[in-house]
């Protein structure tokens, strides 16, 4: 009720938060600090025991732990160094920008845009860093709202996260922050326990140089050379660190730490702050429902309570494959789902990247053709035809023989939400030599084109379909 009142206040002040924030099952964030563990953290990877069984992995790609590296206060002098470090290690970092200082402290929007273009994340660190909170200061909602808007206007990508200026002390207000952000980073210097993450004040350890093994080991192994970190409760947690200026003398140590993190990429998911908090909140509110489990097909849904426009980071779903599936494929709604296969103890598991609330997921062997029409089930799901109807597939009919000159009429039954390309190759295994049509929207029930044919004995017109 309190947040509802605050929303009304913000709207009246012209600082309208996002309109869906209070809708059930479309939460902008998990705004409350958890009073109790949300779930039991498995201390090691788990492996479903029966074929077709599914589970949500704790972290992306079933890694043991997560880490994020963030940089506060613009730090213009360090942009190039961090940029180069990212290129060398493959890691990506999150910048929390004091928007009112851009252009005044040596930092520039083009420089941040270049970092963003390289894959680094951008978040808010307020407008003024509360340099003066006396009148005519415009208030905390303005600090949060205006900085976010400014970043999005200048960088042209969502700024879903913030770091509290000065840490979570007055005048910061987590209830106001929850109107604008998916998560906010604080400065409490402990790793975040996976089942107790306070998304409106996520813990972060301050570093000037080395991000030492004592912290990294704590989330990866639950052990540490530092007594208070040597605690299994941190195992499989999320280590967040924040840097300010990194002086020349400190750079080797910081670089070595980043290189170590990168070397542990199979075990530690080092990712943007905004990606980790999205994965976490999707996971924490997710419901996984197994609808069908047969040797021919596994069907399930993945839903969550989060705002779909923000929370579209894929969760990793682990599925124990049927032994006869030599090459598993998955389709969510009409899209192929990226997957990789892991093997352990004689069984194979698919790690599927599934976006919550984006439709039913169907997993099968690549060659499964339930209706025997020659089109594999997965391709029928993508094309929008019925994999259980032997008379329905992506059937392309030509009118080549009724058309004049060197042209070909093609038509096919099209499905809503699909887009079609028509490409040209001289041989089944040959490269495309021409793109005749691209991104042609479906015009159900039929799409028709007339294509000019090359002067070749053999022409293969590749009519391919994807969903939007």
């Amino acid at each position, binding site marked *: 009720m309190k947040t509802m009142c605050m929303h009304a206040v913000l709207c009246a002040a012209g600082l309208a938060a996002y309109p869906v924030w209070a809708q059930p099952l479309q939460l902008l964030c998990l705004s409350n600090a958890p009073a109790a563990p949300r779930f039991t953290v498995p201390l090691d990877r788990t492996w479903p025991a029966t074929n077709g069984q599914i589970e949500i992995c704790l972290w992306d790609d079933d890694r043991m732990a997560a880490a994020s590296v963030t940089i506060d206060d613009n730090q213009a002098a360090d942009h190039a160094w961090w940029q180069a470090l990212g290129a060398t290690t493959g890691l990506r970092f999150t910048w929390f920008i004091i928007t009112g200082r851009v252009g005044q402290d040596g930092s520039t929007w083009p420089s941040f845009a270049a970092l963003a273009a390289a894959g680094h994340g951008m978040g808010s660190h307020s407008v003024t860093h509360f340099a003066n909170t006396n009148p005519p200061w415009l208030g905390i909602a303005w600090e949060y709202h205006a900085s976010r808007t400014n970043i999005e206007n200048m960088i042209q990508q969502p700024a879903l996260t913030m770091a509290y200026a000065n840490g979570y002390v007055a005048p910061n207000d987590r209830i106001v922050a929850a109107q604008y952000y998916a998560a906010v980073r604080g400065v409490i210097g402990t790793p975040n326990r996976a089942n107790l993450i306070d998304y409106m004040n996520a813990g972060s350890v301050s570093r000037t140089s080395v991000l030492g093994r004592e912290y990294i080991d704590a989330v990866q192994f639950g052990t540490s050379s530092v007594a208070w970190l040597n605690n299994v409760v941190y195992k499989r947690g999320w280590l967040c660190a924040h840097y300010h200026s990194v002086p020349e003398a400190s750079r080797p140590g910081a670089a070595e730490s980043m290189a170590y993190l990168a070397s542990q990429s199979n075990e530690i998911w080092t990712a943007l702050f905004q990606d980790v908090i999205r994965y976490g909140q999707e996971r924490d509110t997710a419901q996984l429902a197994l609808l069908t489990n047969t040797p021919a097909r596994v069907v399930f849904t993945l839903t969550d309570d989060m705002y779909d426009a923000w929370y579209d980071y894929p969760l990793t779903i682990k599925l124990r494959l049927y032994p006869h599936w030599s090459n598993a494929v998955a389709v969510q709604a009409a899209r192929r789902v990226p997957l990789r296969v892991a093997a352990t103890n004689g069984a194979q598991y698919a790690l599927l990247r599934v976006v919550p609330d984006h439709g039913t997921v169907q997993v099968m062997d690549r060659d499964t053709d339930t209706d025997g*029409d*020659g089109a594999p089930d997965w391709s029928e799901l993508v094309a929008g035809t019925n994999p259980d109807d032997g008379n329905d597939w992506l*059937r392309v009919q*030509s009118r080549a023989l*009724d058309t*004049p000159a060197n042209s070909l009429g093609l038509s096919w039954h099209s499905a809503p939400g699909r887009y079609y390309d028509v490409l040209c190759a001289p041989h089944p295994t040959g490269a495309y030599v021409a793109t005749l049509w691209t991104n042609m929207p479906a015009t159900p029930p039929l799409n028709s084109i007339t294509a000019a044919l090359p002067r070749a004995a*053999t022409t293969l017109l590749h009519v391919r379909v994807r969903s939007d």
Partner: protein
Amino acid sequence: MQMSVSAAVLANIHTHTDSNGYFSFALTHLDDEHYRLGGGSNEVSVWLPAPALLSVEETPGWTWTTTAYDGVVWRYEGEEPYIAEGMSVAFAYTSAWHGVAEYAGFSRTSAWPAARVTGVLYDSNHVRVTQHPSGDDEAWAAAIPCIEHATVLGPVVPEGAGGVLGVLLSCCQYTRRVRTRGSDV
């Protein structure tokens, strides 16, 4: 008189004529190891130049119709997918003209247009190919229509034969199966 031309990749057409206006054509699979041309009902068609057409033989599972540019098109309408391999399928017609010429042009409007075979791509296990074999577009489903141009033999069109052609075509039945020469093919 027989001839075959192997410029195509997946399928080709062999022509036979008795030099008295009877032309028969055998659709054959070329020896590609991995791929076949085929298709379900209405996905496979064969166009042949057929000036001065008098009659067309029935080919089981296929229907024929005359087309513009002095052609006949056969369309596959069988219940099971047709795959071009093994036994060839034969098409035949009789023309009022007995001379023999090579039809090899790429365009329907050229003087001597080649035959054209259309279908979709199958693999050697008779599974419809739904991705480009290079695998560079895994997220896509696809159908892969194939068009083969094949050089064939057909009737020589005499000089100034346009007026005669209209009269001859009017004697021919359109868009229906007919049988005129039994099992001569």
